[in-house]
């Protein structure tokens, strides 16, 4: 297998998938349900999600030259691996629905409210198809080019927010205890980002200190995301519930008399790039997983087009209403999400370690 993705590219792709949506709508959802201590919930969920990354890294290090479907075949056999791949394909398809909606809502609210969905949809879909056709190497290169800009935008918003936030709003600390942690399953739709790693299994050029670089970069990202929520809430306090689009609002609607909002459009454009890249990544994964399930090696583009048609049809059916789709996820699909996000990594870890023991045992018996 050709190693096409470098460590740096992989880190940037992981950061992209973790950050993009968590600084858009999630802060508003957490502020509405938890409020002041929402950053603790976010930190908790990010760290739980981080365990998935550690398990996937463990598999990646163990089976350096194998693709994800080959690993599943080795661990579970062909039939079960197909089922797992199919479930993962559905998982990523559901993530595509949200990401497509987010693209539309973001452009619609921030750029031009008279936008019809097809005005933005066609160009984006054409770009996505083109990007997927070019393969993971081109995608990784795109991320390498654009991610520094996206990270810059995120840091600018964070720094601007830090200067405006009133950190005493964190007090009284944990006034109502930690009971809110019990409702963490409601937010499962926003997590499970590290599974994007499965697309790059067998394609990564593993360099020196690969694990340390990935783990440290992602831990820093996690801390910054939690800090971003804290800054968002401590800036707007009770008004946070009115600010749906956190990354844009933190620049545009600062409780300030300055004209810093004038720079908001730069951030909007930057975040559009991040949303596009994130959506493309999810579609790539759907494409990859369905092709693996149905053994499609030629005409993969047809799978992409069919997936995109399903995504557009779903969004058209619910009228691009992100709150409706969030309610559907929260009330009906959360169990499936938890199965994938918690059950699958545990299975992978157990079977992965068990397999190693067998491998270790084989030479002894021989």
């Amino acid at each position: 297998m050709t190693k096409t993705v470098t460590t740096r590219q992989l880190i940037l792709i992981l950061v992209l998938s973790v950050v993009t949506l968590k600084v858009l709508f999630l802060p508003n959802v957490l502020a509405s349900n938890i409020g002041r201590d929402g950053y603790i919930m976010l930190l908790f969920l990010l760290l739980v999600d981080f365990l998935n990354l550690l398990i996937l890294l463990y598999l990646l290090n163990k089976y350096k030259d194998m693709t994800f479907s080959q690993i599943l075949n080795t661990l579970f056999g062909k039939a079960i691996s197909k089922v797992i791949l199919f479930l993962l394909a559905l998982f990523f398809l559901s993530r595509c629905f949200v990401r497509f909606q987010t693209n539309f809502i973001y452009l619609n609210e921030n750029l031009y409210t008279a936008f019809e969905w097809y005005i933005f949809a066609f160009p984006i879909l054409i770009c996505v198809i083109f990007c997927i056709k070019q393969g993971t190497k081109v995608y990784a290169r795109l991320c390498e080019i654009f991610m520094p800009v996206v990270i810059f935008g995120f840091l600018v918003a964070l720094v601007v927010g830090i200067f405006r936030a009133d950190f005493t709003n964190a007090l009284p600390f944990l006034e109502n205890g930690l009971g809110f942690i019990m409702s963490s399953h409601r937010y499962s739709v926003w997590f499970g980002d590290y599974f994007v790693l499965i697309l790059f299994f067998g394609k990564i050029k593993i360099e020196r200190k690969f694990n340390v670089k990935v783990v440290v970069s992602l831990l820093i990202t996690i801390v910054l995301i939690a800090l971003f929520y804290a800054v968002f809430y401590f800036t707007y306090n009770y008004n946070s519930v009115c600010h749906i689009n956190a990354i844009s609002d933190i620049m545009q609607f600062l409780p300030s008399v300055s004209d810093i909002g004038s720079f908001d459009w730069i951030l909007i454009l930057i975040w559009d790039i991040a949303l596009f890249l994130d959506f493309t990544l999810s579609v790539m994964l759907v494409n990859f997983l369905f092709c693996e399930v149905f053994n499609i090696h030629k005409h993969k583009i047809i799978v992409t087009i069919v997936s995109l048609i399903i995504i557009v049809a779903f969004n058209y059916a619910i009228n691009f209403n992100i709150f409706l789709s969030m309610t559907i996820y929260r009330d009906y699909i959360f169990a499936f999400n938890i199965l994938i996000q918690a059950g699958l990594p545990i299975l992978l870890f157990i079977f992965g370690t068990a397999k190693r023991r067998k491998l270790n045992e084989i030479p002894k018996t021989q």
Partner: protein
Amino acid sequence: MRYLKHNKILIVILVLFVVMFPMTISLPQQSRSENIVTAIGIDKSGEEYEISLQYLVPGSSDKALKCSSIKGKSVGEAIEKFNLDYGKVSGFAHCRVIVFNNEASDGNLNEALDYIQRIKTNTNNIFIVSTEKSAKDLLSSVKDLNSEFYVILSRDSVTGQHNHYESLKSFGDYYNTMLGNVKCIAVNNINVEQDNSSGGGNNAQSEATNESSSQGSSSGGGQNSEHESKKIKNDGSLTIIKDNKRLLTLDSPASDCLNWFNSKIKDMTLKVLNYNDDIYQNCDITFDVYKRFTNVSTYFVNGKPFYKLSLVVDVTIIEAVKESLEIKEFIPANNLFSDKLKQAVVTEIKHKLTLAESNFKTNKYDVVNCYEHFNKFNNKQFKHYLQSLKDDEYFLEDITFVYDITVRQWD
């Protein structure tokens, strides 16, 4: 074609152009369908609201700002009516000020503001300002200055008083306060008065007349043709809103006392009357407060709450009024503050703080955020203290205010 065949990216760009160009070239300008509202006035008379909208008319005309009014049973109904009459949808993304009159705030102010709060493009950075009689008059006067209202509010001085820009409260502040524990906010009170000065001089406000727009006004509001000369009066008075209703209006001296609790107000003056020492005899001395460092700490002693306000004030003399002229007053070395003069300043500041304290204790309004300070930094003790009261509303009464004031001379 062969070139295109070998450069797939060009095909994508071409497809994008072919798809996007016909769809976007025909989109109308947003200003053709949206009205750019820069200020909203809310007047209530009886059960009816009269809404005045100050809006921007794109073009090269000198009078780019217009003001129109319309009546309705609610704010939403009035604005919807206005949209129908004017033929454009009112856009509030550029709205910077909401003015409401006393009658609107005497009722439920939330009722008046709810429509605006729910507008998606509302920035929460809109300043809220109260006026005693008519928001419509105020907006009309501002419109004639051909300057957006918030620019006027941000000017260093409107009628020769202090800069109140820092003390202006925004829509976001209002909802944060009303949704929080305190539910009490002080908003600036700005009025319109007849300008009796002849000739106008160099006062920009005196040029303001009550001419009004003839566009878009369907109720006749703002179509007064008489040329009365009016000026905007910003004397620093404040309206106290508690639980979405106007509690009282503080006049300029009372507001000035309260401002000593507000760390955001930078530009202040202080007057010590009939001061006597070796250098100044029977003088009314005015000081400019150059810098003010404020620190608030809260603590409990034997279950009793204490609110300590520490102030470090840098002042300089800007005027000493007296009957006779003494040369020693102008000798630079003599300009050093004596301890007695510093003490006089401290006494005066304490006097103002005590007046403000007795006022907000008597009228039970917590605009200095006592509740939040105790709740954040002494949460458990404060809860215990609140439980010992028969009603949370009386929590201010037993708080002891301690003032630690240091005065320094600023050169």
